[in-house]
C-alpha cells in the first residue's frame, strides 16, 4: 500500500462483448472469448506458482505469474488457451510464465488440439532474463512441433503491452494471427530503438510513427498478420474462429513460400522509409489517410491492396 494522495480510480465495469479488448484484463478477455462457462484453468492462482526470482528485486509477484492457461471451447470446438496479462510486469515472460505455455503446447501436440494465444507482452522479463529467453526458445520449438502434428496455433494481438521482443518471434511461428488497430507487433520496441540508436532513428514519443511502423494496420497491409478486427472482445472471438479455419501446415513448401513472400516484400518495399511510402506503393490512393480510417473504410481498401500471406506463414 502507499499513502492516499488522489481519488480512487473507478471500479472496472463488468465486461461485455462490446468492451475494448485493449482495456480488458487477461481473464476478462478469456471470459468473453470462450463459450460461457467452458473455461477450466490449469495451475490457477490458488496453486500460487509464483516467480521464484522477483523477490530478489523487491518486486511483487502475481499468483498466475502473468499468464492464464487452460482449456475451453470456441463455438463448441474444444481449444487450449493462454492469455498474457500485460499489466503485470508488461506481460513479460519469466520462468514460470513461459513454462506454463510450453507445457500447454506439448499437450496440444499430443492431443491434436488447437491453441489460441492471447498475446500481451513486452518480451523477456529482465529480472529473470536467461530463464525467459530459454522459455521463449522452448515455446517456439513446442509451437512448430505442434503445427507439424496438425495443430493450429492462433495468435491474437491487441493487448495494451503489444507483442514485442521474444513474444513477437513466438507470434511469427503461429499458423494464423489476428490483430486490431491497437495491436503492435515488433521485435525491438520504440523505446529500445531510441535508447540504443538515438531519437533520430526512432522518436518513441511520436505515437503516430509507432502505429505506422508496427501497428495493426501496417502489419495487416504488408501481410504480417492474417485478419484485422475491431478492438472488441466479440470481434476477436469472430477473428479467432476465422483463424482456426486456416491450415496449420508447416513444412518445406510453406517455408519456401514464406521465404519467397518475405523476399518479395524486401524487393518491393525495402527502400522505403515510412509506412505511408509502403502503403502508397501498395496502391493505396491516400496513404496519409490510413491511420484515421474507420474499420470498414480501411478493410475495403486493405482487402483490395494488401499483400496476403495465405499458406506462407
Amino acid at each position, binding site marked *: 500500500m502507499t499513502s492516499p494522495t488522489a481519488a480512487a480510480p473507478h471500479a472496472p465495469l463488468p465486461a461485455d462483448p462490446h468492451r475494448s479488448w485493449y482495456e480488458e484484463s487477461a481473464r476478462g478477455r478469456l471470459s468473453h472469448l470462450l463459450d460461457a462457462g467452458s473455461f477450466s484453468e490449469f495451475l490457477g492462482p490458488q496453486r500460487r506458482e509464483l516467480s521464484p526470482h522477483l523477490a530478489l528485486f523487491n518486486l511483487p509477484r502475481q499468483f498466475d505469474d502473468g499468464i492464464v492457461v487452460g482449456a475451453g471451447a470456441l463455438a463448441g470446438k474444444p481449444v487450449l488457451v493462454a492469455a498474457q496479462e500485460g499489466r503485470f510486469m508488461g506481460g513479460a515472460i519469466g520462468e514460470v510464465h513461459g513454462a506454463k505455455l510450453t507445457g500447454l503446447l506439448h*499437450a496440444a501436440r499430443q492431443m491434436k488440439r488447437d491453441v489460441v494465444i492471447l498475446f500481451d507482452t513486452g518480451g523477456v522479463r529482465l529480472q529473470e532474463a536467461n530463464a525467459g*529467453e530459454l522459455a521463449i*526458445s522452448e515455446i517456439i520449438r*513446442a509451437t512448430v512441433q505442434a503445427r507439424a502434428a496438425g495443430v493450429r496455433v492462433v495468435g491474437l494481438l491487441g493487448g495494451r503491452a503489444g507483442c514485442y521482443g521474444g513474444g513477437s518471434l513466438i507470434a511469427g*511461428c503461429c499458423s494464423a494471427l489476428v490483430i486490431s488497430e491497437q495491436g503492435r507487433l515488433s521485435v525491438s520496441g520504440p523505446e529500445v530503438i531510441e535508447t540504443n540508436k538515438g531519437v533520430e532513428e526512432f522518436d518513441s514519443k511520436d505515437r503516430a510513427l509507432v502505429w505506422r*511502423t508496427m501497428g495493426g494496420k501496417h502489419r495487416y497491409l504488408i501481410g504480417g498478420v492474417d485478419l484485422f478486427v475491431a478492438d472488441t472482445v466479440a470481434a476477436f472471438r469472430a477473428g479467432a474462429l476465422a483463424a482456426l479455419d486456416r491450415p496449420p501446415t508447416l513444412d518445406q513448401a510453406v*517455408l519456401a513460400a514464406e*521465404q519467397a513472400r518475405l523476399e518479395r516484400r524486401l524487393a518491393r518495399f525495402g527502400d522505403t522509409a515510412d509506412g505511408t511510402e509502403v502503403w502508397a506503393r501498395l496502391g493505396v490512393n491516400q496513404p496519409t489517410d490510413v491511420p484515421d480510417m474507420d474499420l470498414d473504410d480501411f478493410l475495403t481498401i486493405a482487402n483490395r491492396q494488401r499483400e496476403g500471406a495465405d499458406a506462407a506463414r
Partner: protein
Amino acid sequence: MLPAEILTSLFPAGHQVTEEGGLLAGTGRLDGQTTVDVVGITGKTYPGVDEALTLAGRILDIAARPAPAPLLFLVDSGSQRMSRRDELMGLSETLAHLAKALWQAERAGHRTIGLLYGGSAAGAFIATALACGELVALPGAWPEVMDLPSMARVTKLSVDVLKEKAATTPVFAPGLDNLFATGAIAEIWDPAQPLSDQLKAVLARPATGDERARWGLDRGGRQKAAAIAREVEQLALAHG
C-alpha cells in the same frame, strides 16, 4: 578462437567456407565420409531482415537436399539490428522464419548443431543459436539476453547492485556460465582439443528432444520450469 582457427580445427580434411557481409556459408569435411554444411553469423553482426532472410534461404536449401548432412551454425552476433526500417519490414516475421527454417532442416533429418563462439543476444540469440537442435559453446563465448547497463536503466538499479545480485543466481545476468546453468547449452567444448573430435562425439550421440528444461533443473539454474511445464501438460491431457 577466431573463425579461421575454428574451421581449421573442425575440418582437418579441409573446408570451403566463405564470409560475406558478416555471414558464413559453405561446407567442411569432417573426415573422408562426412561433409558438414556450414552457415554462420560472424564478427558481432547484428542480423536485420536482410541477414535473417539470407540465412533462412540457405538453410531451407540445405533442408531440401535429399541426403541429410549435419548442419553447423557458427554464431558470433550482436542482438537483432535495432532500426526503424527492420521493424517496418517485419523483423519479427523474418527472425521467426529463420528459427522455423532451422527446425525444418532438423525435421528433414539434418542434425543442426549451433556453435556459439562469440556473442549473441536477445532476438538474434533466439533465432540462431537457440533455434538449433543442440547448442555447444567455446569458452569465451558471451551470450546475453540484455547487457547489464541496459538492465540497470530498466530496473533503476546500479550496475554494481546488479552484479551483487548476479553472484547469487544465474537467472538474469549475461555470460556463458549463466546460460549454461539455465540449460541453454548442451556442453562447453575444450579449445585445446581438436574440435573435429568433439563435433564427431556430438554427432555420434542420437539426437534427443528438447532437454533444456531438465538441464536447467539439474544444473540449478531453472528450478521450476521443468516441473511446471510437465504439470500443465499432464493437467491438459487429463482434462481431455
